[in-house]
Each structure stands twice: as C-alpha cells, then as structure tokens.
C-alpha cells in the first residue's frame, strides 16, 4: 500500500513536472516569436535613415534659433520650413513670435496667412494676407513679385470660402496680373464669377485653367455648374465626360463624350476627350478616328497632336 502510494505520488509529480515544462516551453515560444517578429520588423521596416533635405533644414534652423532666439529671420525661415512640411501650428507659433516684436515682417505675415488657409481658417488668414499685400503692392517690382502673387491667390481663396465674391475677384485678378498661368487662381476666379451670376466669365476661366492643367478635375466640375446655369446640356455632357475621363472612369467618359460629339460636331475638345477615352480602353482604331477629327477641327491643338503620335505608335507596335 505504501509502495503504491509512492509510485502514484511519483507519477503525479512527473505529470505536474510535464505541465510545468509545457508552460515554460509555451512562454519561451511566445517570447521567441515576439522577439524574432519584433526584430524582423525593426530590421526590415523601421529605419531612421537619412533625413530629407527639408527635415535637415528644420533641424538646422531649430539649432540656429536655440543659439539666437531673437533672430526674426531664423524664425521666419523655420516657419517656412514648417509650412513646407505641413506643420502649420508650429509655423504659426514661429510667425506669432516674430509678429509680436516686429508686426510688419513680410515673410511672417505671408507664412501666417498661408498657414491659416491650409488650416481652413479663412477668416484668420485675411488680416496677415491683407497686411502683406498692402506692404508689397506699391513696390517697384510688384508686377513680377511671386510672393505677392501667392498672397493675392490665398487672399482670393479665403474670400471665396467666406463667400465675399467681389473681394475675391479683385484679389484673384490681381494675382493673375502677376502670373497669368496660375491655373488655381483661374479656377478660384471661375468659382467667384459663377457665384456672382457671371457664368460665361466663369467658363472662360475654367477653360483657361484646363488648357494649362488638362487633368484639372475641379475645373471640369466648375464647368458643369456654369453650363448647367447657361442651360447648355451638350456642353454639360462634354464637361461631365472630361471630368470622368480624368477620374479614370472611362466608361462614363465615353457615354457623355459620345453624346457631346454628336450634339457638337464642330467642337474639337469633345472629340479629343473621346479619343483619349477610347485610347485608355484600348480601342485604338476608334481613338485614332476621334483624335484625327479633333485635329481637323483644331489643327494647332498640341494635346491632339501628341495623342495622335502616341496612338499611331501603339498601333504600330501591335502590328
């Protein structure tokens, strides 16, 4: 009886020992998997690496400011770097410190205004931007001043957001006097004209904008609204088709543009758009016909000439 008890006890202990070993092995396995997984991830996916030039500029300028906290130039430079990095609050913090001491520091005013626009605070953007434009607009090289152009643009965009359209038009026209090829300014101006009931003026700006930036989806959206106002459904179809084309929805683009070319047989841009849509869906023969028609209507259309060359090359390569 006593021997049986001992055997039983030894076995029980042995089972317990195995159980303990299992727990230890399980813990070790979990630790090993976690360690290996963590190390593998760190080694292959996490790398501090070299910093981008912008990060290095920020780091450098932060050091400069530590050594000379009173330097407005350094703070404005740092604010510009923060702005470039999308660190708008940090940029504003720097400009605020400069403007508290030197309220007419032009760089700080511009950066503050742009930062407010990016933070979707148009009301707050107005004061620094108006102050900046007032300081710069009468300087000798004002008509070539790209910073002034930027300030007018962001001022115009802020007015558009605040629905102060007359002021927006003034600011955006001023921006375009300095840089006539600013497609964003043209688009914003289109919005302002549309909102003041001047759909034809708006369309003129939208068309200029898409000539400069052919895939300007928002500008085609503006056209849809203006053509709708003018009750020109065939042009609405054109704008919808071009919008869909640039959103890579080629089926929708073809539907609208096929309607547009039928309704507007003398309107080259619709044929070009349709040709581009066919090209994207691989129907090169149809694309060739449409683009040739676009060129017949507008022989100088550079985009159509390029498309024709591209389509012919693709057809040749397919034999």
């Amino acid at each position, binding site marked *: 009886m006593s021997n049986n008890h001992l055997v039983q006890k030894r076995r029980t202990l042995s089972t317990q020992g195995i159980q303990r070993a299992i727990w230890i092995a399980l813990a070790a396995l979990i630790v090993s998997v976690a*360690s290996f997984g963590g190390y593998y991830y760190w080694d292959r996916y996490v790398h501090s690496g070299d910093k981008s030039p912008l990060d290095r500029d920020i780091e450098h300028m932060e050091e400069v400011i530590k050594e000379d906290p009173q330097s407005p130039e350094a703070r404005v430079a740092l604010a510009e770097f923060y702005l470039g990095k999308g660190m708008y609050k940090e940029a504003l913090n720097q400009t605020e410190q400069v403007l508290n001491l030197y309220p007419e520091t032009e760089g700080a005013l511009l950066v503050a205004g742009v930062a407010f626009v990016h933070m979707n605070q148009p009301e707050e953007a107005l004061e620094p931007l108006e102050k900046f434009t007032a300081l710069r607009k009468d300087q000798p090289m004002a008509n070539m001043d790209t910073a002034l152009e930027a300030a007018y643009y962001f001022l115009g965009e802020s007015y558009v957001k605040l629905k102060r359209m007359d002021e927006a038009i003034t600011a955006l026209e001023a921006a375009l006097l300095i840089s006539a090829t600013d497609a964003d300014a043209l688009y914003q101006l289109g919005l302002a004209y549309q909102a003041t009931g001047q759909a034809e003026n708006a369309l003129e700006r939208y068309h200029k904008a898409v000539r400069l930036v052919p895939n300007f989806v928002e500008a085609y959206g503006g056209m849809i609204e203006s053509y709708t106002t003018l009750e020109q459904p065939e042009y609405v179809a054109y704008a919808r088709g071009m919008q869909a084309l640039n959103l890579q929805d080629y089926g929708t683009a073809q539907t609208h543009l096929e309607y547009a070319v039928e309704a507007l047989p003398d309107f080259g841009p619709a044929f070009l758009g349709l040709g581009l849509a066919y090209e994207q869906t691989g129907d090169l023969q149809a694309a060739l016909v449409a683009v040739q028609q676009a060129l017949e209507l507008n022989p100088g259309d550079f985009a159509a000439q390029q498309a024709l060359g591209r389509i012919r090359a693709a057809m040749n390569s397919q034999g």
Partner: protein
Amino acid sequence: MSIQLSKNTTITAKAIEEDEREDKRRKRLLLLLMLLLALLACVVTLFIRYLWQPVPLPELLPIPVNVNYAPHYLFSIYEIERPIGVAVSPDGDRIYVAETGGERLVKVFDRDGDLLNSFAPPRTRPGERSPVYVTTDKTGRVYVTDRLQHAVFVYDELGTYLDTILGPDLTLSEYVSKHVGSLPPGTVLAYNSFEPDAYYQIGETEQTIPAPSPVGWAPLGIRMDSAGNMLLTDVAADRHTVREISGDVLLSASWQDFAPPENIFGAYGQGDGQLLFPNTAVAGSRGRVYVTDGNNGRISVWDGEGNFLFHFGQGSGDGALSLPRGAVIDSRDRLHVVDAVGQDIKVYDVSGSEISLLFAFGDWGMGDGQFNYPSDIALDATGRVYVADRENNRIQIWSY
C-alpha cells in the same frame, strides 16, 4: 474474508484503470511538450539564421516559398547630384554611387546612408569625366564606366585607383609595361584621354609616355555574372553590342597581359538581334543574357553562346517598357528593370520559358518611394534594393 478479497480486487482494478488514464494523459502532455519544443527550436533556428544572414522571410525558410510581393520603401540618401549608376559591395556594407552632376564623383556610403568617401579617375577634372554605370566583382573591386574617357576605371573596395581597361584587350598597366618593362607592385598609374600623356610612377619619380591611341569603343553598362564574367555594353558609333569578357583574366592578380577571351553579340539597329543603346546586360540562372535595349524600349534575350532568342517589353500594355536602363537579376530569377520614362521599376519572372511581369513599384513624383527619371538599380544579399533616382538627386533604398 471473501468480502474483503472482493473489495481489494475492486480497489486494485480501479487503481489500474486510474493508472492507465494517467499514463494516457502523461503521453498526451509529453506529445504536446515535444511539439512546443520543436516549434521553439524552429523559431530559434530561424532567428539565428536571420541574424546570420538577414534575408526576407520567404528566402529564410528551408522549403521554397514562391511568393512575390513588391518591396517597400525604407529611406533615401541625399548627398548626391544626379546619380546615374549604383552598385553594392559583395558584403552589402558599401554602396557605390556614380553621379553625373557636381564633381562627377563615385561616392561611397555605408548601409545607413552615411558618406564614407568619394573617388574619381586620377588626374581628371570634373569636365573631363562622366561616370555612368558601376559594378563590383567577387573580390570587391569596383568597375566604373566613363562616357567621356571611353574607358572602364578599376578601383579597390576603398576606392583606391588600380588600373584602367582602355579597350577589350588593353589595360593601362599592360600599355605602360609594354613601354617600360614589367611593372613592380605599387606602381602608380594615371590616364586621362584629354591629355597627350599617360603617367606612371615607380619609386619617387613620376614619368610620362605618350597616351595610347583610342581603340574605338564606348563602354556603357557593366555587370558581373555569378561566374565572375563581365558583361559590358558597347555603344560605339558603328556598333551597339554586348561584350562578355571572361572572369578568369579579370580575377588574375596582374593585368599586364590582358587578352581575355571575349564573346560579342548584337548589332546596331531596331530588328531582331539588334540593339539601340543597350544599357545593361545581366545573366540569369538559365544561362540567358537579358539586355536592356534602351532606345528600342525592350529587353533583348540571348542564350549563353550569344545567339539571339527573342525580345519582350516593347509596345503598350502591362509590362511594356518606355526607356529601360539599369537592370539586375536576383537569386530567384526575377529581373528588375529600371524604366526611366515609365518612372518605375518593373519586375519580371524569367525563371521559366514564359516571361511574365510580376509587379512594378514606384511612380513619378518627388515624395518618398516616387521616382523622377530613375536610372540604375542594385540588389544586395539581404533583400535591399538600391535605386538611383536621378532627377530627385538621391538613392532610394527599398527592402523586400
């Protein structure tokens, strides 16, 4: 008495039954323990193997796992102007970058992207040199082709100049030794095709001899195959060819008698078996050679004897190439091709008889992982991918 006996028998039977149950339980637990220990051993072995050779997990596993996924962007090296060629040392610790901007140097970086040093052909000024492609051999020597010098400059792994390959069967050391006799170790040489003399220094005094006449070749792309043979593209005006130069001579200690056996294939043109600005030629495991046929916008495929087989990548659609430049092939026969105008890296499976596009990575832009006219590519043994992102003035490092 008999009641007592029956009772004892019942107790014994129960004890035996319990023992059997316990035994079964112990066996199950032991089995579980074994399984856990085996798993633990596998994980620890994998971990140790990874520490020994840090390659992507699918390559680490003892059984072949045929998965294909695009690499991910890690970081960039920025201290470069218009990098055009990139190579990695055999141990993966040094990255060599040929730049066409600035001083036109070959810059050397460590794995973390820290600049170690830079070098250029001796006695040349920036306007007289234009390094293009770079490669390393098994011993770590660095070979740099130069468009302006029409030569291949050879350096040791630290960037110390060793010799210049002036033509398919002529090196600078051979040329000088023919004029002045056998060169002792430590002889310093220098050659600049814009100067009338070649230089050598034995001992204290520098001496000159007339520079060798041009041999009429124009080395461009340069790669080494696994056997150590050099694959060099030649874009001289009258011939656009690939030269396969035997590795036995390249790996010899001295190049004072440089006449390696050579296999030349390709000709100038657009037809089958013809090439227009072949940029790089790389060898796959099936003995085939893949040539990035730059201006024909395709990859030209040749057998090991230099016979044209077929080409792919021309035209439109998935896998179509615009301007293929640098290329490299990995241990799984995945051909990585830099498409400079397509602004991406296209990766093809060339392991079988059918070539297929596996994936492409990158697109146009200036952000992380975007390219602006990429030019060359290199792989290291740990699954890192180095891309010369020319117009973004950086080397991008990606990892599988």
